[in-house]
């Protein structure tokens, strides 16, 4: 009858269902495939480490999404430290997907996106790629809905500014 048996999270199923979309989200946050894969792997590892953390399967994706965002931020911090002491050419070579052609108009936006503060980038990715509501973004990032709204607004302005800056500096170089 199922008495005493509560719904549980099937990590295998979650892995199969959401790994690709989470890696894609992570790529937008950390901008390299290897790190993105690590970030998502970490998220599943954390879930496996605490199988009781998410008992309701319907909340598992929210858990994983928050986990990926937070782990991605940690990864960026580590990378920032590394970059402070290493020349850019020491970075890992691009993965196969990195070398795939991204249209110029998209590349500009993605480059500008990665000039934003982490929180701004997270809000934009969750809003415009994950299509989350303000409430869901607030829950994912543990901030208020008002902060989501103001961060998104400022982030768009900052993104536009960064794009203009990139465009004008590109012209100067030419």
């Amino acid at each position, binding site marked *: 009858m199922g008495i005493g048996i509560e719904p549980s999270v099937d990590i295998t199923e979650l892995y199969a269902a959401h790994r690709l979309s989470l890696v894609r989200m992570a790529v937008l946050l950390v901008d390299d495939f290897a790190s993105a894969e690590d970030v998502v792997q970490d998220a599943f590892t954390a879930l496996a480490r605490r199988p009781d953390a998410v008992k309701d399967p319907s909340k598992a994706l929210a858990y994983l999404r928050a986990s990926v965002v937070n782990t991605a931020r940690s990864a960026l911090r580590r990378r920032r430290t590394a970059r402070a002491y290493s020349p850019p050419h020491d970075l890992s070579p691009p993965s196969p997907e990195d070398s795939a052609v991204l249209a110029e108009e998209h590349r500009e936006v993605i480059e500008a996106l990665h000039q934003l503060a982490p929180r701004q980038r997270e809000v934009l990715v969750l809003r*415009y790629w994950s299509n989350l509501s303000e409430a869901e973004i607030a829950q994912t990032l543990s901030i208020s809905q008002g902060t989501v709204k103001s961060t998104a607004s400022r982030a768009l302005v900052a993104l536009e500014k960064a794009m203009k800056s990139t465009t004008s500096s590109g012209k100067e170089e030419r």
Partner: protein
Amino acid sequence: MSTPDTMSEMEDRLRAALTARAEQVRPEHLAPLTPVVELRPRWQSPWVLIATAAVVLLVLGIVFQGVARDPRSDDVAPKPDERVELQLPADVGRDWDAGPESTPAKVDLDGDGTKETVDFLAEKTKNYDGRIRLQTTLSSTGKEAYGLMQVASTTIGMTAEGVIDADGDGDQELVVFDPDLDSTGGAPLVFDLRDGLLVQVVPEDPELLQRGDVQVPGSQTELYDRVRLHQYWISGGSLFSGRSEDSFARGGMDMVRPPAVVLESWEWRLGDDGVLRPEAAGCRELTFDVRPCGVDQSERVPDLGARVESFVGIGESAEVASGYPFSMRVEAGDPPVLVVEGPDGRTLRHELDVPDPLVATVQPESIFSDGESLVVTSASDPTLVQLLVQRDDRIVALEPVGEVPLENTDDNRTWLSETGSVVSAVADDDGSWQLWFWKMTSGNRAFALPGATVCFDDVDDPTSVRTC
């Protein structure tokens, strides 16, 4: 490639770019789950190996059953690691102008006993937000030092909040307030001279170092939410912050808080790594200022004022002078009619649907202050309480909604105070009373915001309120 002309276009471009970038990751790019030995080097602690092995087993088909509690998913998700790295400022903005409303700061950055003058140069942007360059010449070396900060508004004049010596090294750090434009209020930005640059140091726990009203997660209801009050201040060359121990109900523009709010406080110490860390600094009370705890216990409960005892009944009239002035009278009839005449010359008539009506001669300004507002009760049924307000050319009775009834009974005392507040006190089993403060909301409705739990020496006398 051109930059977008409108925000909508910007959003469309962003969406398209995110999709394109994300879809570069194809299913075939995902590596099959690898054995533990092939995982990346940083996965080397025994715990991580165990956990990773668990993932391998799980992916092979072993299902973990959930047990015990059901926490919020975002509560249990891994948090970013604790390490915080400083970012060196970029050398930009030399040609930016000092904002006319900014005041240069005086601070002894290099610890030579002479204060440097730090100018705030604002970046001009279309939306008046952006970066501020902090620029000075060090008195000890004659060299230029600069820093950079991102602020919510470059048009609000930048002024130093003060100087601190949070690391105790004898030189000073500069504290500047960034007035965040959202509801939370803002946070201090602290700059320390490091390697000849003004580097923004970072708090280990930013949520503890801010100013304003911060919503308690999950507290939002249809009518109100709850907030904790945050404040920070500089005292004796140290930076302190505090967070209210209690949370307070907030509805619309109103918040229910006592005159003195008890804060849990911290003193912020700056480490060599550039991280500000909070150290517990005990209890403080937030009034207009911040003071030590225990100065005046009576201020931890609201000033309820005296109960209004002056009413007019049928055939009587009164002048209401405080707030929006008007005259009123209650004319006999079936039903009796309330007649009010305001300073705009309008005479409004309202049929009173309570028996033996009594209308208070004090206006409940906390309910409504842009026109006539009145409290009505009944001489023959004192449990009745009605709130009336002027809406255009008529007087309407507000519909009470929310968690407490608008009535005056033995265990739900409701009264109008001399200060114009309508208050309910709901009895608890232990002899204490939960206070509720009535407010007007949309749709000609009234609801009560929850306040403190208090005790009364005499519940019929609101001025005898005290802490329990």
